[in-house]
């Protein structure tokens, strides 16, 4: 089979996979209310129930790449998790900035250690893609595949406050960049960097819970800045502010 045919098959499989997602849809049990108070805290949602959050994540750009223009670029951040068994759950995350998106799908296994402390381990695979077509400036697109093995430790403080610390290793698996009719591909798996997330989850008003936190990522490449064509072989610091409403 030619590379082109491989590509087409991969694309179709991807679309079929996406269309299959609604098969996981729904089931809120009437007997036991699903938890709507955490997303990051290492505890599985009730089996066959969903747990979602919608918010924003702001990433500060490193000066090596954006130089004088130091901004915090926002992305819409959607988390969606579904309990599979008592301890195992599916964790998905979709971040979008419209011209570029990142979809992460993974599994996590969580268990309590004491009545306040809980841990989880997980593995997420994320695909990202972006396309820019601006007259006289860009005719480029890129996409790639990363994976993030992660471990979280959560502490449930008194008065409905949950603190979670999550550490991830970011691995790169595939990168393809196209400008006009030229394309380059890098498909060697390598360690891209690592990230540490600290999140507090608590009620904000009435019954509405929020996740508010900070993620410090040190990585060689960040998918949001693909269009800056980072050639620095250095881990750059990407601080991110996270704020989301748990739905």
């Amino acid at each position, binding site marked *: 089979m030619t590379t082109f045919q491989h590509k087409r098959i991969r694309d179709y499989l991807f679309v079929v996979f996406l269309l299959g997602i609604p098969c996981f849809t729904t089931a809120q049990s009437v007997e036991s209310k699903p938890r709507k108070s955490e997303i990051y805290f290492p505890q599985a949602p009730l089996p066959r129930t969903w747990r979602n959050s919608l918010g924003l994540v702001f990433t500060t750009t490193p000066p090596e790449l954006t130089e004088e223009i130091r901004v915090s670029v926002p992305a819409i951040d959607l988390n969606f998790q579904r309990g599979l068994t008592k301890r195992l759950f599916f964790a998905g995350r979709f971040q979008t900035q419209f011209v570029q998106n990142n979809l992460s799908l993974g599994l996590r296994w969580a268990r309590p250690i004491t009545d306040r402390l809980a841990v989880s381990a997980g593995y997420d695979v994320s695909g990202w893609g972006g396309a820019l077509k601006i*007259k006289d400036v860009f005719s480029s697109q890129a996409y790639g595949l990363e994976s993030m093995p992660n471990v979280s430790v959560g502490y449930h403080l008194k008065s409905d406050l949950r603190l979670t610390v999550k550490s991830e290793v970011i691995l790169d698996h595939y990168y393809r960049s196209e400008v006009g009719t030229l394309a380059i591909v890098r498909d060697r798996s390598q360690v891209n960097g690592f990230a540490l997330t600290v999140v507090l989850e608590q009620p904000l008003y009435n019954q509405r819970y929020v996740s508010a936190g900070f993620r*410090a990522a040190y990585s060689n490449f960040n998918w949001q800045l693909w269009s800056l064509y980072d050639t620095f072989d250095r881990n750059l610091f990407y601080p991110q502010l996270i704020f989301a409403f748990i739905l």
Partner: protein
Amino acid sequence: MKRYCYLVPILFVIAFGGCRKDYEAPLPYTFINSSGSGRFSPAVRQALEGVYVVSDGSTQFGSEVVLKWSYLLEGTDSTHYLSVFTGLDAAYFNLEGSAQTDSLVLNGYWRKLVNADIGLARLVVQAKHNGRLQAFSGNLPAGDTLVIKGLYGAGKNTPSLPLTLQYRRPLNKKPFNIMAHRSGGRTADLLPASENSVAIIKLASRLGATGVEMDVRYTKDGVPVLYHDNTLNLRLIEKSGLTGSLESYTYKQLSALVRLINGEQIPTLEEALEAVVYNTGLKFVWLDTKYVGPMDPIQAIQQKYLQKARQAGRDLNIVIGLPTTDALDSYKALKNKANTPILCELDTAITRNLNAGIWAPRWTLGPQTDEVLAMKAQGRTVYVWTLDEPTFIEEFINQNKFDGILSNYSPVVAFYHYTEQ
């Protein structure tokens, strides 16, 4: 439990704090910069230039490298430097001939531009005769090959790792303009000189550049200076506290209180062009119009230095770059456009209307083969900017359609150009 609670603000402070790592690449080698060529006579230098195969050291520097000489002039004195350009991690060597008279020894340093790896290097030039190495006299009989053997190291450590280069073939002679961005390179690439400084203009040839691009702005009192960003900021200048747009400050204020990140003064355009004409062998200068306002003073300086170059017998072209419609308007407002070579970054229609000699589109638009060939058919030169991705540099050079590339990584462009067959 209480212990964990105190952790929260501490974690926040650590997380929010200045967690950025400051990278540095201090030069481990101090150049002697002795004028004259010593044992490296013009014939020896000519013989040394070429494409070499790397046997020892290929994991660090790749399987092939390019050797090229460049020079600096001070009055009538000339100092010669040998550069080695590689295709791996944008690595290059900067070497000078040793004063030793018994053999051809080169001392200097190597650096990888993609990260901060740097180290010392010491190489000896020899000839391989009947499979055996012997001193190179300056004449290379048929059947003999030049072999450069030596050691390189990490940081300031004494070189201990072997490096062996064997001559394979001469450099690609096709004319091509290797233009260094920001007068030589970016400050973020941790070069020994700041971007848009006279010091980096003098370094540009050693990085493989045959031309430079400079960013021109006006101070409040109308003095044209080289400075890229809109504002005074810590990316480019040492922290004096002063901030705001460069155009708010007079030249007197800037020269007294502002220093570039490596300690240099912000140069005036005239100082920069003076260095290009009288101190270097650079063939091309691209004056990028970062200012908004009348172009007349820049045109006057351009013509003055074109004249000076002619008088000094220099093969030098100085063009004014038009990146935006504002710059276009400033150019159109010039009363007399004779002897004012320009470069247009806008689309082909505008380039044709202006009858610009050079069209320079962004590399992110792709190879644009049809447009490029159409421009060249009209006798125009086509450059592409600012291309740093090594794999894309190789692709664009292999396209064989462009007349030059503007890059922060001139060593990479030099490598792919000179090794092309």
